[in-house]
């Protein structure tokens, strides 16, 4: 029985290697950096890439449009919108997506972009925070992130962010779930190899929030992490949990230099 299974495994490994050799990839240089980091874009097929490149048919842009409307919508008792303080997002939000997650002096910990948006809403607009994965929060995150398109990810991991970074790094290399796999097992050791019909990406975050074909909807980084944890049959953490913020910080450092592509389209 065991030899049987090994025989099947050998056959699958052989076909996987063969398939990888056939599907050689030549991708535009703009999505690779000298560190060898590769955007998820480079692991997509031509149709998916074309969908992302065309701003009209990129489904993610529907959420960016929504976010743009929300940006100038008044909220809270003072009737202020994001625009009231931050003005034109094209200038004021230009580099934001490259810097988050970042240490928040007000909250005393590293926070994600979603959490920063909600902090501004509650502390400055005196309005209710948006729930995680709500249409509005994703739309605003997508709108703000898309302002940084073409700029390299550049998160700070020293000083007050150092502890969060270390925790995120530990998470990335820690095995979990019934399948007992760590993020690194697939996304570092086997990036570029194939799991059945699809190639494993490096799991970079420069395109988030993404329109994921599998979800037929937009999703945040937290949704992706929760999905990945479920995929290895591990209990996912709650959205907005510090574990996921720490992991996001480490991940964005790992892909530093990759250009922001939000909203990206992925399988």
């Amino acid at each position, binding site marked *: 029985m065991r030899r049987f299974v*090994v025989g099947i495994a050998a056959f699958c490994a052989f076909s996987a290697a063969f398939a990888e050799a056939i599907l050689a990839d030549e991708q535009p240089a703009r999505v690779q950096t000298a560190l060898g980091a590769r955007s998820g874009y480079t692991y997509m097929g031509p149709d998916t890439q074309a969908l992302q490149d065309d701003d009209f048919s990129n489904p993610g842009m529907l959420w960016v449009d929504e976010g743009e409307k929300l940006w100038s919508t008044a909220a809270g008792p003072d009737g202020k919108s994001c625009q009231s303080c931050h003005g034109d997002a094209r200038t004021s939000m230009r580099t934001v997506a490259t810097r988050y997650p970042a240490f928040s002096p007000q909250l005393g910990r590293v926070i994600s972009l979603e959490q920063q948006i909600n902090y501004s809403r509650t502390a400055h607009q005196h309005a209710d925070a948006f729930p995680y994965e709500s249409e509005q929060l994703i739309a605003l995150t997508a709108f703000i992130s898309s302002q940084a398109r073409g700029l390299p990810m550049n998160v700070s991991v020293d000083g007050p962010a150092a502890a969060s970074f270390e925790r995120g790094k530990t998470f990335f290399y820690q095995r979990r779930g019934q399948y007992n796999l760590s993020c690194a097992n697939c996304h570092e050791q086997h990036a570029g190899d194939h799991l059945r019909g699809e190639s494993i990406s490096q799991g970079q975050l420069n395109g988030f929030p993404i329109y994921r074909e599998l979800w037929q909807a937009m999703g945040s980084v937290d949704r992706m992490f929760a999905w990945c944890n479920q995929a290895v049959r591990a209990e996912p953490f709650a959205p907005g949990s510090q574990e996921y913020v720490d992991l996001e910080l480490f991940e964005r450092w790992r892909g530093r230099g990759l250009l922001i592509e939000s909203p990206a389209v992925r399988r």
Partner: protein
Amino acid sequence: MADLILTRRDALAGMGATFLLLTAFPIRSFAADADTAEAIKAQFGDAVAQDGKVTLKLPALAETGNSVAITCTVDSPMTDTDRVARVVIFANRNPRPLIATMLFGPKAGQSVFSTNMRLSGTQDVIAIAEMADKSLWKATTRVKVTVGACDTLQSRY
């Protein structure tokens, strides 16, 4: 651990078993071709469609079945009398073979359209065009749809 060393017999047995496994158990639920014939009959009755006039542009290999781009062109002058009334698209292995019905109105410029469809697996996409004179024309294209390992997670998490 001597029994983990792969002998030639093991490799051949493995390959044979894999082949049997892959062919014996279909990965997704498929409609029978009879369901597709029924769906076509529901739209067009007993009329028979000839091959021709319709051109389908579809990827030979779709990396995700969730969104497959399709462009359908029907060869027609689109005059008041000589024109395309409607085009109906079918996917013969989807759980519901009927995908959509497209109708060209009097202000249509050309008998061409594009949209994105869902394909549950490798199968044939069939487009049947009904002309103003009630004649039917069709085109069939095979699209391979790859399946990713992680995609087998059913839930919407």
